[in-house]
């Protein structure tokens, strides 16, 4: 066997990649592998690289086993399970020297096995499946479980933990449980007999996952909607946001059905398109329900006209934009942070919107709730800008705890009695409290509270206007209202120890940045760090920008959208900013940031030296 790295280094610190054809049931094996290591107390991270297709195209799943609990891609591959003949050559190439490749040796492919700096392990998976199991589909599915057994032996994954997981999945289907367990054991035994198990690259029990869960961001966001008290959801299916509504629906089926009447305390509208989805959200919010729509970039593009209406007529709305690769249809199953500018100023005319940037599923949950509170407090659309990486991959995060004292902030809505006691007629857009936020009333409550909602020019009393001064009073207050949002949105997270240079990032780039900071530190480069969590940028963001002389803006898009927004919305001097951009569609890796920072610092030095 060929080894280059120190074997000890790779215990609980390696990347396992599984190359498959989609539609062959590999997902359950991926989960089984990842969760069994997680249950052994070892931090894991899973990333799914899947095609925009239902069956027959290549799909990869990457599990990073990381004793340091990093959450980003490391950029290396230590073990490849190459099950897809189509991508076999490319998969062989990807393995780092000293790594391993496992393939199905039922039909020998000697010409393809051309690398002597990695270890190649052949297992006759198909042959063993065909000998043991009946039915074409069962054989295909169980092949995945069989290589999981092989990996269990090679990596020393606790077989009992895996058996227990299978038992949980097939608790009501004894025959499936039996065949799955059998496949697992066949693979396990084969590996034990034919290979020196375990490999130096392997796992060992830890206790770093207690009080943690494995959850994807879309499920967490849906859970946030459930706990925020959202009752109306409207959507049009689009990857990668679909699972938000799928999860919301299944939570509602469990928790929102009245036990006495069997009636639903929620209503989900599968709209005819995104225009109708946001229209329904606006109608429901106008009428006093908490309503939301999950979508992705193309949906936001369609919703633009309505978003402007909600902004100008001051109607709460919560939008989840699970970003994917653009422009246009782009790559629907790949990740990007490409909608920052689109969302910040969505719609024609002077519009600007509150954006929240979750970095992980835990924040998806909390920011979903924040989004409803902010939307109703500020009477405006609020966007939660998640992305495919956060939304559709399983992340390890702390168990979510629920603070029973939470009360939804429904904002300034007049009650029936308050309307009754109004000294004058109700005036919808008057800044009575001088906080730039007017009062609103709900339909059906009291005739004295009635007003006319319109996207056409209106004065502060709610009346139609084409008068310049009257129009401007309202528009200027909207500007002040947006200023007020600065003190209400989540603050940036800042790690500062007085360095001159710093990294600034947003959303799912966070994991890679944190790991990059550690790596840089080990190489003698220490940097401060700020992760922005909301737009508009608060004074904390401005202060951080002002107090550093060199700022690396790390983001996942081509056009440096966060950097653009920072230069537009803060007094930052452009010459202090350097972009580190990643827009391949795969989640950003720590190495990309380390390389970017070091290259730039090298340039800086050269500049300083030559100057």
């Amino acid at each position, binding site marked *: 066997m060929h080894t280059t790295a120190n074997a000890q280094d790779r215990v609980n610190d390696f990347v396992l990649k599984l190359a498959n054809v989609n539609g062959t049931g590999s997902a359950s094996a991926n989960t089984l592998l990842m969760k069994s290591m997680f249950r052994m107390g070892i931090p894991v991270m899973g990333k799914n690289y899947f095609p925009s297709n239902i069956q027959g195209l290549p799909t990869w799943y990457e599990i990073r086993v990381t004793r340091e609990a990093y959450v980003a891609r490391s950029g290396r591959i230590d073990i490849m399970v190459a099950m897809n003949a189509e991508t076999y050559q490319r998969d062989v190439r990807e393995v780092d020297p000293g790594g391993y490749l496992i393939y199905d040796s039922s039909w020998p492919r000697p010409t393809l096995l051309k690398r002597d700096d990695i270890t190649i392990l052949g297992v006759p998976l198909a042959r063993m499946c065909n000998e043991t199991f009946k039915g074409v589909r069962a054989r295909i599915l169980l092949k995945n479980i069989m290589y999981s057994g092989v990996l269990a032996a090679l990596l020393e994954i606790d077989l009992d933990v895996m058996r227990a997981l299978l038992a949980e999945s097939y608790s009501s289907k004894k025959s499936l449980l039996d065949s799955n367990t059998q496949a697992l054991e066949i693979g396990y035994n084969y590996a034990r007999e034919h290979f020196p198990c375990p490999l130096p690259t392997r796992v060992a029990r830890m206790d770093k996952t207690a009080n943690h869960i494995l959850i994807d961001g879309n499920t967490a966001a849906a859970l946030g909607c459930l706990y925020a008290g959202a009752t109306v959801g409207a959507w049009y299916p689009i990857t990668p946001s679909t699972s938000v509504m799928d999860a919301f629906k299944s939570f509602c089926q469990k928790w929102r059905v009245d036990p006495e009447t069997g009636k639903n305390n929620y209503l989900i509208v599968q709209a005819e398109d995104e225009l109708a989805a946001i229209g*329904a959200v606006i109608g429901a919010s106008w009428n006093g329900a908490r309503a939301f729509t999950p979508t992705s970039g193309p949906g936001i593009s369609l919703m633009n006209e309505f978003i402007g209406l909600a902004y100008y007529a001051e109607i709460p709305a919560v939008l989840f934009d699970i970003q994917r690769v653009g422009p246009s249809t782009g790559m629907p199953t790949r990740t990007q942070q490409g909608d920052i500018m689109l969302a910040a100023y969505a719609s024609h005319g002077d519009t600007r919107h509150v954006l929240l940037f979750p970095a992980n599923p835990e924040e998806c949950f909390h920011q979903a709730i924040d989004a409803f509170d902010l939307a109703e407090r500020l009477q405006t659309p609020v966007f939660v800008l998640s992305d495919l990486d956060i939304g559709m991959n399983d992340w390890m995060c702390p168990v979510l705890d*629920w603070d*029973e004292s939470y009360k939804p902030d429904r904002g300034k809505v007049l009650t029936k009695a308050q309307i009754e006691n109004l000294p004058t007629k109700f005036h919808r857009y008057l800044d009575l409290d001088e906080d730039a936020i007017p009062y609103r009333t709900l*339909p059906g409550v009291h*005739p004295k509270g009635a007003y006319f909602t319109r996207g056409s020019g209106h004065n502060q009393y709610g009346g139609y206007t084409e008068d310049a001064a009257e129009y401007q009073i309202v528009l200027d207050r909207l500007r002040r209202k947006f200023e007020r949002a600065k003190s209400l949105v989540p603050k940036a997270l800042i790690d500062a120890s007085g360095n001159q240079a710093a990294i600034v990032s947003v959303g799912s780039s966070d994991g890679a940045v944190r790991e990059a900071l550690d790596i840089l530190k080990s190489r003698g480069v220490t940097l401060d760090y700020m992760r922005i969590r909301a737009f508009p940028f608060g004074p904390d963001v401005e202060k951080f920008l002002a107090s550093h002389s060199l700022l690396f803006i790390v983001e996942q898009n081509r056009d440096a959208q966060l950097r653009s927004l920072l230069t537009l919305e803060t007094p930052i001097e452009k010459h202090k900013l350097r972009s580190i951009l990643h827009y391949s569609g795969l989640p950003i890796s720590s190495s990309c940031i380390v390389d970017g920072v070091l290259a730039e610092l090298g340039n800086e030095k050269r500049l300083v030296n030559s100057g």
Partner: protein
Amino acid sequence: MSFITKPKITHPGLPKNDIGLTRRDYEGGMSTLCAGCGHDSVTAAVIEAVWGLSIRPEQLAKLSGIGCSSKTTAYFDSGGHGFNGVHGRMPSIATGAAAANRDLYYVGISGDGDTLSIGFGQFAHAIRRNVNMLYLIENNGVYGLTKGQFSASADIGSKAKRGEENKQPPVDPVMTALMLGATFVARSFSGDKEQLVPLIKAGLRHNGFALIDVLSPCVTFNDHEGSTKSYEFVRDHYDEVVHADFVPPATEITAQYAEGHALPVTLHDGSRILLRKLDPSYDPTDRTRAIGYLREKLQQGEHVTGLIYVDQSSSDFHAVNNTTATPLNQMAYEKLTPGRKGMEKIMGRYR
């Protein structure tokens, strides 16, 4: 220019409805439409109907898109909330509003442009969902607000003011609604209050989506000779097939009708629509035959009006969604959150 409110002068002698309100209590802002515009007559009919039904002013939510027609939601029932949304998208706002509070009456007012071109998709899907609302199209064959371009309801051969002839086939909202499974389909004329008022009453009380396509001439851009949406043309070529009389609950039907000519339909709340068939062979509860009848008449150059189709048995939006009886916007938060215990349970799945 600010919003003009009509001076409120109360005449003690004005008739009151069952909840003690006069017609004036259902009025809105002063209309800014052209004098003689059909849309103003529709507004008057809506006021008459809502007053007659004794609906509390705040119980009516008024929704519209953009156009001269869509402006009219500001001209009636100032005691109810109004929402002038974006062009062609009123149905989705109505869907969301109805989802949030099932207890209000929703009246959506739209134009032929708003409904049949830019908003065609939303119109169709509100019908498919059977949203509980009254949907009025004030149909004048043109885009009034953008100064008289042909709309999708303009008939082949109809002439624009400056002589241009429309060559594309029209979209008939009544036929479309029938095809899509609408549960209440009517056509009327802004100039025929006697026909229109009971239809509005019945439509408001209908459980589900009620469409009334109201021919409502645009005096400024489409009331000339050669237009098929002028007052004169509509008077001459639109014929009633079924007249609907609205009968409130617990009221006796007293009038006498010839055998086979009267058909009472009981609505959800116990009120009835008494259908007076002007053509005894016509059956307003048979969708397929209604479609055939309309086609036949159209070939003879006749447009059918009245309550063309009604079905009281189908499930509305909330029934389909099995929604709770309490309006969702009034559910206490405690009923909506699984709480801390629930969270512990939920977390179990992800450990």
